[in-house]
Every structure is written in structure tokens, then in C-alpha cells.
């Protein structure tokens, strides 16, 4: 493959108790492109995503085997500082999760935790990220109001801005638009497309059309197995695996 890679998943298997959720997944995620992980619900997409920023650590009874390398560093190495890894990745959840604070404080949360306390610097960061998320004009007069008062679409963009504020390298999206109305969805998709020039983006979705719209690279996950992956155009036009074909034509969902 010609794309430079940033994130490499090698033989990843995840089980919750007796249930094997991910079976021996290996994937080299291309740098500065949008990789879409697609598949029917329950196939392990969210588990895969959460294993990337080690959010699975806090689940009872989870067993993780295999390796994940970010910049050639194994993120599951016990010597690695987990907060450092997580800082490299920004997560956008399905349902916008605004922290119980003002708009400003939401975005400043990450930088403050990592050591930035200068008020002016924080203000600059807040403005920069709100612009990057396309939200600045709508909230610039409401920075100190509770973030919960924004509309759902605005909240999701806030979460995007917040994630960008810690200067990650990789953006992870877990069905980032499925809770939004069509217009807000379009805005978020647009932002993600614009962001790929600076960040590696990985989006998990079950909406085929979204995959067609934004994917540079596509990975099809079915029942915990990575069935097929490759440049998006190729996979959509010429799927090699019968299961992929069945999914793309809507036979299985």
C-alpha cells in the first residue's frame, strides 16, 4: 500500500468474558485520510474504535490481545502513559457529550488539564478550535453560557472543537452524525473532510451512504472479523468478498 501509515492494528482480538467481539483484526490506517469502518450493528465497530484510545481499559472482564501501534509505539505497553495516548486521539461520540460547564470551559477543559493555564492562551485556543469546527460565529457571544443550551448539532460541533483543542493526531468518530438532523450531519461531515489535511480521521458508521460520501479508505467489519479493506473506490466498485458484496447491496444489514 502506498499510503504512509500512522496507526497500525496488528492481530487485535477483544473478548468480553466469553464473547469474542473482535477476531484477529489487522489494519494499517493511512495517514491524513478518512478511513471509514463500516458494518452492521453489533459487528464490533465500536469495540474496535474504543480499543484505539484504550477506553476499553475500564470495562470489567475485557481481554485484549494483539498490538496497536501509534507512531511505532505500542499503546498497550504497560510502560506507556495512557493519558498521553488518549491525548493523541480525539473522540467524537454518537450522542454529543457536553461536559457540565460553559462552552468556553468545555473547550478549555483539555488544554487546562494538560497544563495550559494562561487565560489569553486559552481564549486563543477556544476561538481557533471553534472556527475549525465551524461554530465560532454561532457561539462567540455565548461563550460563558452552559454548553447544554446549544442545539444538538451545535453540541456535536462543540465536541469536535473540544477534541481538537488537545491537538490530537488522530480523530475518532463513533457514528458521529447518527443523532443529528440532516443539515447538522452535513456540516459535521464537511468539517471532517476539511480536517483530513491535518489529521488522520477514523469514522465508524453503519450508514452506507455516509461511507460513500466521505471515505478515502474503507474497512468492512462483520461479526468481529475484518472481512475486507482497501481504497474506498475500489471496495465500493469491486468488492472481493461475497459478504462485502451482500452488505453493499443491502442483503445483510
Amino acid at each position, binding site marked *: 500500500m502506498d499510503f504512509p501509515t500512522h496507526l497500525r492494528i496488528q492481530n487485535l482480538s477483544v473478548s468480553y468474558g466469553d464473547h469474542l467481539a473482535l477476531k484477529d483484526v489487522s489494519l494499517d490506517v493511512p495517514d491524513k485520510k478518512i478511513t471509514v469502518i463500516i458494518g452492521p450493528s453489533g459487528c464490533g465497530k465500536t469495540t474496535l474504535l474504543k480499543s484505539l484510545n484504550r477506553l476499553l481499559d475500564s470495562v470489567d472482564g475485557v481481554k485484549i490481545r494483539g498490538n496497536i501501534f501509534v507512531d511505532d509505539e505500542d499503546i498497550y505497553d504497560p510502560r506507556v502513559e495512557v493519558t498521553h495516548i488518549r491525548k493523541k486521539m480525539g473522540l467524537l461520540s454518537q450522542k454529543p457529550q457536553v461536559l457540565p460547564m460553559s462552552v468556553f470551559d468545555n473547550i478549555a477543559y483539555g488544554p487546562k488539564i494538560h497544563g495550559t493555564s494562561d487565560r489569553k492562551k486559552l481564549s486563543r485556543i477556544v476561538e481557533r478550535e471553534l472556527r475549525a469546527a465551524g461554530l465560532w460565529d454561532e457561539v462567540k457571544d455565548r461563550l460563558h453560557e452552559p454548553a447544554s443550551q446549544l442545539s444538538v448539532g451545535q453540541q456535536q460541533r462543540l465536541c469536535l472543537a473540544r477534541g481538537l483543542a*488537545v491537538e490530537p493526531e488522530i480523530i475518532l468518530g463513533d457514528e458521529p452524525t447518527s443523532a443529528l438532523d440532516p443539515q447538522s450531519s452535513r456540516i459535521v461531515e464537511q468539517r471532517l473532510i476539511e480536517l483530513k489535511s491535518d489529521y488522520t480521521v477514523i469514522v465508524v458508521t453503519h450508514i452506507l451512504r455516509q461511507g460513500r460520501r466521505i471515505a478515502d479508505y474503507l474497512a468492512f467489519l462483520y461479526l468481529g472479523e475484518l472481512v475486507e479493506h482497501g481504497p474506498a473506490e475500489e471496495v465500493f466498485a469491486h468488492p472481493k468478498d461475497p459478504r462485502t458484496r451482500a452488505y453493499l447491496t443491502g442483503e445483510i444489514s
Partner: protein
Amino acid sequence: MFLLTAVPGFLVLLMLFGLLQKSRAILALKSFSGLLFGSSWHPLKGEFGFFPFLMGTLWVTLAAMVLAVPISLLTAVYLSEYAPKFIREFTKPVIDLLAGIPSVVYGVWGVLMIVPFVGKVLAPLFGVYSSGYSVLSGGIVLAIMVFPTIIHVALEVFSSVSHELRETSLSLGATKWETVKHVVLRKGLQGIIAAVVLGLSRAFGETMAVLMVVGNVAKIPKSVFDPAYPLPALIANNYGEMMSVPLYDSALMLTALVLLLVVLVFNLGARFVLMKAERRAE
């Protein structure tokens, strides 16, 4: 069934009415502020100054809360956010059992362990003399009695904070503790305040255990090592004499009325806040 359902409401009203009626006698003769702020309690002479008892209740309740709140909240955070499953499963029944131990038993234990501890160990450490029967003893015993109340409500509050919210904070690179500090506690703040107020309400009205360790001396305490005489103890200790001294029974009923009203306000306030917090989380 219909008629029976009206019983609770009827009962509350009856209680309020009954206590009010009996308090009338003393309220007719003495001004409310005179009763509230008077420091002299000599029923035989017709003097009914409640101030020492109010102060006694305040001191003991405050001592109990100062001890109970941090310990309860820290425990609740630990159980909710850090403890492995088996520790949680083990501690929950323990806390339930603590809640079920009768007041008298707490009192006996207080007399056995806490009173000598305060009198012979703590007080000399501070260079003070104390018989052990003191505000501090009452506070310690009361704090333990209040633990289950605060912990139980706090745990409910914490579990209502969605785990996705915690994940959000963690994925920004925050440590677990930072997540607890800035997200969980913040989101659950209203509920935690309600938990504390419920604990306060419990502490206020608790009678037997406190009575047995607090000394029952009708003077305003000047330090935690001094004895005190809280309002519930006043009622419990003197029901025997109250019929033989004029106005005594009315005074004690007034005490009960005051207790009822204070506890009512605390309890309702806390429940109201909790309801609002629950609705918000939905």
C-alpha cells in the same frame, strides 16, 4: 383502598395539628423569641429557655456532619469509580447493616468505646479535661449512623451520570481522578447536596444514641469536649416529669414541633432537589 390512601396525608396533618395544639399553652404565655433565645432552663421556676438545647443540637449535628460528609463522599466515590466488583458487592450489605443497627445499640457501643476514648485519649491529647460524655462523642457516633444515608444517595447520584460522559473526559487525556473531580462531582453536585441535607436531617432527629453519650447538661457547649443537651434528648429524658410541672408538657411538645418542622423542611428540600436532578438526567 381509596380511604386508606388518604391516611398518610391525614396523619401528617394530624401530627402537625396535635403538636401545635399542645404547644399553644406555652406559646400563649411566653414570646417565641424569649423561648428561643432564653438560656435559663428551670421548669420548676417556670423558666423555659431553649437556647442551650438549640446550641447543643447545632454543635452535635455539626460535629457529626464534619466527620460524616468527607468520609461518606470519599467512600461513595471509591465504590462508584474505583472499587473492583467484589469490593463493591461486599461493602453494600455492610452499609445496609450499619443502617439497620438500632439507635440504642449504637448508644451502648458509644458508651463502651467512644466515651472512654474521648475522655481518656483525645481530651488529654488536647490538654483538656473531659468526662468523655461530650459533643465529640455524640458527633462520632452520629457520624457513623449517618454514613449509610449519605453513601446510599451519593451512589445513586453517581450512577445516574452516564458512563459516556466519563469516557469523554478520559478520551481527552484526563486521569480518572480528574474525571471524577471535574465531571462526575460537578454533574452530580445537586444530588450530592441533597444527600448531605438528608444526612443532616437524620442527624438532627436522632435521639437515643446521642442521648447516651452526650452528657445531657443544659449548658451551651464551649468546645467539642464539653457535654451538650440536644433537643431530642430533652424530650426523651423528661417525659416522666412533664405532666407534674405546669407548662412542662407544652414546652416539650413545642420542642417536638420544632423538630418536626426543621426535619420537614430539610427532607422536602432534599427530595425536591433530587427529583429535579433526576429529571434533568433523563
